[in-house]
């Protein structure tokens, strides 16, 4: 569903961010991206949601290739992806409900259906009682839940999360991670960049470690290699 083929990304000002990276994320998979700051994690995520284009190589996401992208394709792609950030990126002057509904309005969903879908999602993320609140009236963990609800509102194939727990305390972190697990269990793939080794250790998900723009470890490949050896 997500495939990087020999992808290199070079920024004009900061130089090479990714160097000849190839990877594949299957449907419904949960993948951690980890590595030090500036290693290239966010660049990989940006390439997935096509905020950035590769300097060399090809990125394919749910049938769309960076090699043959047309005007308007990126907008269509983003409707199939859910994106969550460390800093939540909510519209501060709109209520929780409006923030989530906004993502539906953008796609031209029938207006009548929006409230029902929004309220179902807010229940799913545990914020049904806060639908009329403004983001600043919520805790960090709650704001991230709103962001996740917004990311899920268009029923994406993949949820992309860039350090979603980076600004949260332990308790909120556990809550958000639990929510992401549930989302993954219902069939949505999750690609999550994180520094939090505790989360990685506690779960059994595939982990890709990036350093200086290259994949230095991929537990998925390591596992496959092990299985090959056994058989």
């Amino acid at each position, binding site marked *: 569903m997500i495939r990087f083929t020999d992808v290199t990304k070079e920024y004009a000002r900061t130089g090479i961010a990714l160097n000849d990276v190839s990877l594949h994320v299957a449907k419904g998979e949960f993948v951690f991206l980890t590595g030090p700051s500036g290693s290239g994690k966010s660049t990989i995520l940006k390439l997935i*949601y096509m905020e950035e284009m590769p300097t060399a190589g090809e990125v394919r996401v749910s049938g769309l290739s960076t090699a043959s992208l047309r005007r*308007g394709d990126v*907008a*269509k*792609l*983003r*409707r199939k992806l859910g*994106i969550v950030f460390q800093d939540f*990126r*909510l*519209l501060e*002057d709109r209520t929780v409900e409006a923030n989530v509904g*906004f*993502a539906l*309005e*953008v*796609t031209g969903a029938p207006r009548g259906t929006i409230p029902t879908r929004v309220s179902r999602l807010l229940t799913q993320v545990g914020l049904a009682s806060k639908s009329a609140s403004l983001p600043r009236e919520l805790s960090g963990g709650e704001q991230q839940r709103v962001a996740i609800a*917004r990311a899920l509102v*268009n029923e994406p194939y993949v949820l992309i999360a860039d350090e979603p727990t980076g600004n949260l305390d332990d308790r909120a972190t556990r809550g958000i991670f639990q929510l992401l697990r549930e989302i993954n269990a219902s069939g949505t793939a999750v690609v999550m960049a994180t520094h939090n080794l505790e989360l990685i250790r506690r779960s059994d998900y595939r982990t890709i470690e990036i350093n200086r723009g290259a994949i230095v470890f991929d537990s998925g490949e390591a596992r496959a290699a092990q299985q090959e050896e056994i058989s």
Partner: protein
Amino acid sequence: MLALREAMLAFRRAPLLSVLGITTIAFSLFAVGLFGLVALNIKHTIAGVEERVEIRAFIAEGTPADAVATAMADISNFPEVLKVDYVSQEDALQRARRELGEFRDVFDAGFLPASIEVRLRDGFRAPDRVRAVSTRIGTYSFIDDVRYGQEWVEKLARIRDIATIAGIALGLAFATVAVIIIGTTIRMAVLARSREIAIMRLVGATDGFIRRPFLIEGFFKGILGGTAALLLTWLASTLIDRYIIRSSFFSSETALIGLLGGALIGLIGSAVSVGRHLRRV
């Protein structure tokens, strides 16, 4: 519909910025309007003076009346000619006496020759045209002399040329400044919402979807700013007319064009600002 709602929301959420934007547009266009008013009145004045351009052809004594009548009919058929009048010797004397006041007794009857007075149509009052018509009139054998105040006509044409060139140059400068100021104001409105634009893109909004509310907002700001500018200009014109100097205001067509111009500047300014912003992010 959604775009309209978003545009209205933008007004409600940032009323100060919106009012500031409309005021900026209003005063920029007011400056253009005032300039336009000055240009219009100068044009009217020059046109008024130009209307007085006339050619006077003096008729030799003893010319038969029917020859003069034929010539006059001929001349009135020239494409440049608006009006042809015959001034008899008596008329000329009376006019001279009227104009000269205390020297009224200087002239004796029969001293002044009869003449044909020719007025030209608008657009045919440039020096070379006047000269050409004068020359043609001068070819009639019974015409002694043709006068049209050559120096005066040339000076008037020069003044008109200078006024036209200065008007166009200043008008363009004023309009450019207005467009730049209005563009900057709209750009501020776009930048103030850059975070919102980024989030819209993130959740899959197309550029068209993002652009639409801004275009509507720009259009309305342009209309409101334009209306305010028109009212200010009208007020200024009325006050000037009443207390300073007789002046005229734009025709309603020109006023409407000015208003639409404001709306167009708002629309185009928004399109350019949002377009540039969308290309950059």
